[in-house]
């Protein structure tokens, strides 16, 4: 299903407001929306809210054989799903262009930047390694899915614990979590993606665009960076022309944003760790506010309404008052043996012909009946209706 297009007046409004450095939700051009990171009860489950954009990431692990070119490296597999729950524009099935773009960006940001130490995932070189799989599900799309997904993916990877293994010759023993404590993954650094959107051929720049702002933009740039000021991925997309100094300016802004977000992730991880340590409850249910007073009160409003006349002759009124006069019991009239009638209409005119037939049949019967008796007189008269009546005298 196609998304409703943005109207021309909305587009003009957004661009004009940018000229005065104003945004629809009142943010500054380089401000992020409120980021909320929560972890689930399962290890490796992370939900991130970036304003109204919501993304859920889950990390799981499995033992597989390694790739032929890298026999002693584990495998990191990332999958981003744009579920139709997120936006009416997303469809199930084949991945759209946007889906491919987000998948490739996250793959490059997390896998090719070597944020996860894959060599520590090796169990038996050339035979068995851990495959870490990150599934990212976009639950609501209100712009800037890329940033939200990257935060969720890296937070989930840092939160995840894999089962402990011992290698005994060629046997591999995987210990369940109640036998031996699961061990965390070795995350070297946390690359976070920051999205910049450009307007008016690069004149105006916004950080963290919302859905409406994304629809109006000329092009965007995604910079994936970690807090050590290393750029993990950079991509300029959209049909626009940039100058080199714009790119450099964006990377400077990105440094500041990434440090803030990394701090947020660390704090959230720490809170979760404390909660689990102290035996307190943890998970999504705990992070939802339950003790707030949920009432919604509204002052009575004055509404302008025109008075309507009640039409007395209207049929509807009659119909609405009490009994329905149109209700009829369905009566079945029995006309004759085996003949019934429902509804209006006269008696069946077929009955006349039937009677004639029965009369003739009766006469034939009379004729055939006294077979043994001699037929002495037969007189026949031709009626006006061309009906022959036989009058038979029988002695």
């Amino acid at each position, binding site marked *: 299903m196609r998304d409703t297009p943005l109207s021309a007046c909305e587009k003009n409004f957004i661009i004009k407001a940018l000229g005065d450095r104003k945004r629809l939700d009142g943010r500054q051009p380089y401000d992020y929306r409120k980021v909320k990171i929560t972890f689930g009860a399962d290890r490796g489950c992370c939900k991130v809210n970036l304003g109204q954009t919501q993304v859920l990431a889950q990390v799981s692990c499995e033992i597989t054989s390694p790739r032929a070119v890298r026999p002693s490296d584990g495998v990191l597999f990332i999958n981003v799903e744009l579920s139709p729950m997120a936006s009416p524009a997303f469809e199930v099935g084949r991945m759209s262009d946007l889906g491919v773009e987000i998948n490739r960006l996250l*793959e490059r940001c997390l896998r090719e930047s070597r944020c996860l130490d894959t060599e520590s995932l090796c169990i038996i070189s050339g035979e068995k390694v851990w495959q870490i799989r990150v599934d990212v599900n976009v639950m609501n799309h209100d712009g800037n899915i890329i940033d939200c997904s990257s935060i969720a993916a890296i937070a989930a990877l840092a939160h995840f614990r894999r089962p402990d293994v011992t290698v005994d010759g060629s046997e591999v023993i995987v210990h369940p979590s109640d036998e031996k404590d699961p061990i965390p993954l070795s995350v070297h650094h946390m690359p976070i993606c920051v999205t910049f959107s450009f307007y008016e051929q690069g004149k105006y720049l916004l950080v963290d665009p919302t859905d409406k702002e994304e629809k109006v933009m000329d092009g965007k740039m995604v910079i994936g960076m970690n807090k050590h000021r290393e750029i993990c991925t950079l*991509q300029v997309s959209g049909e626009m022309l940039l100058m080199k100094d714009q790119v450099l300016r964006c990377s400077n802004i990105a440094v500041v944003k990434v440090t803030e977000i990394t701090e947020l992730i660390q704090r959230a991880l720490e809170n979760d760790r404390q909660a689990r340590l102290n035996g307190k409850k943890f998970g999504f249910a705990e992070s939802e506010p339950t003790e707030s007073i949920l009432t919604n009160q509204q002052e009575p409003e004055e509404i302008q309404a025109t008075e309507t006349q009640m039409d007395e002759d209207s049929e509807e009124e009659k119909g609405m008052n009490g009994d329905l006069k149109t209700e009829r019991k369905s009566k079945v009239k029995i006309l004759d043996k085996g003949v019934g009638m429902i509804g209006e209409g006269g008696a069946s005119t077929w009955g006349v012909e039937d009677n004639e037939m029965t009369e003739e049949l009766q006469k034939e019967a009379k004729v055939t009946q006294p077979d043994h008796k001699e037929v002495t007189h037969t007189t026949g008269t031709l009626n006006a209706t061309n009906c022959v009546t036989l009058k038979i005298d029988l002695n």
Partner: protein
Amino acid sequence: DRKSQEMTMHLQQTFNAAILTSLHPRSQIDIFVEVLQSDGGNYCASVNAATLAVIDAGIPMKDYVCACSASYLGDSPIVDINYLEESSGSPEITVAVLPKSEQIVFLEMNGRLHEDNLSKVVDMAVKGCKDVYGVLDRTVREHVSQVGSSLET
């Protein structure tokens, strides 16, 4: 697969920005690229080849689109990296520019690169693009003069 889908999208964006599509309303321009042999720099070679093809077809563009890759190895930037250098894990920057105005049409980076070195590496890549532009322009002019002279006779 995902990688070739991604490259298709990038090529499309690059040429959408460079070709004057408003001069060809209600028409579709198809560019088909076949990589015969790959030794690194697939995207760059595709862009340069497609530029020449579009010029040969007579479709008006804002300027030549030239692409080049660069990397940072050891402590110096290097230009036009091959497959071996790509797979060694060093960062790789691919840039497509309009050479005369030095406007960047496409920029992509893989691997990990420190922010301080970004400027140097991008400069290196842009310079590489300008050199590629020199070669492309010379080739086009030679070709045109050949065709022109054979028409005269």
